[in-house]
């Protein structure tokens, strides 16, 4: 039982460390136009673009994948996420999660 838990943990951390924070930072460059401006608002309806630095990587990955599959509906985010690979998404999420520290 303990051995299984160990392998699961080891596997999970290996998968997490496979994401490349530096690559994520480069890939996030386009996103800075909205998510890098403190008071930036969505055009219609009007609300502040969410703060994403410091958010959990797993949540961010789920959000980007939901935009990519059009399950989550936001025209700008759908087009931004459309061309992202799973690796891109993991890299971006890893960069953002540590960007809050």
């Amino acid at each position: 039982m303990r051995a299984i838990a160990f392998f699961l943990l080891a596997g999970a951390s290996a998968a997490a460390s496979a994401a490349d924070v530096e690559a994520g930072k480069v890939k996030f460059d386009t996103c800075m136009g909205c998510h890098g401006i403190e008071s930036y608002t969505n055009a219609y309806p009007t609300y502040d673009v969410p703060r994403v630095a410091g958010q959990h990587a797993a949540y961010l990955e789920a959000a980007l994948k939901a935009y990519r599959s059009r399950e989550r509906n936001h025209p700008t985010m759908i087009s931004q996420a459309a061309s992202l690979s799973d690796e891109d998404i993991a890299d971006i999420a890893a960069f953002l999660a540590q960007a809050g520290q």
Partner: protein
Amino acid sequence: MIRTKDSLRMSYRASVLLAATLLPLAVAAGDPIAGKEKSATCAACHGADGVSSAPTFPTLAGQHETYLVQSLKQYRDGSRKNAVMAPMAANLSDEDIADLAAFYARQKGPLKTVKY
């Protein structure tokens, strides 16, 4: 001053405009203390102060208030689909949503605008 029909119409228009400008402010003003009371259910996943311990649940502490309002309204109307959040948001009034958003936006957490 002679009040012509036109000037009356103008002042009527001005007051309608003023009311329309103030209305969203009135709706948006949530009560963070009431929000804290209403957040008891949310705490199980999002943490007592909005910093969630499980990575699949987003941290809400310090998130933009207007974004939180938008998200809850989308869960409520079904335009944002999530099996867990849909029933949570279903019974929230606009006031509940405003209060919850006011509470979480004011909590200290790791969320920031991205800086290079």
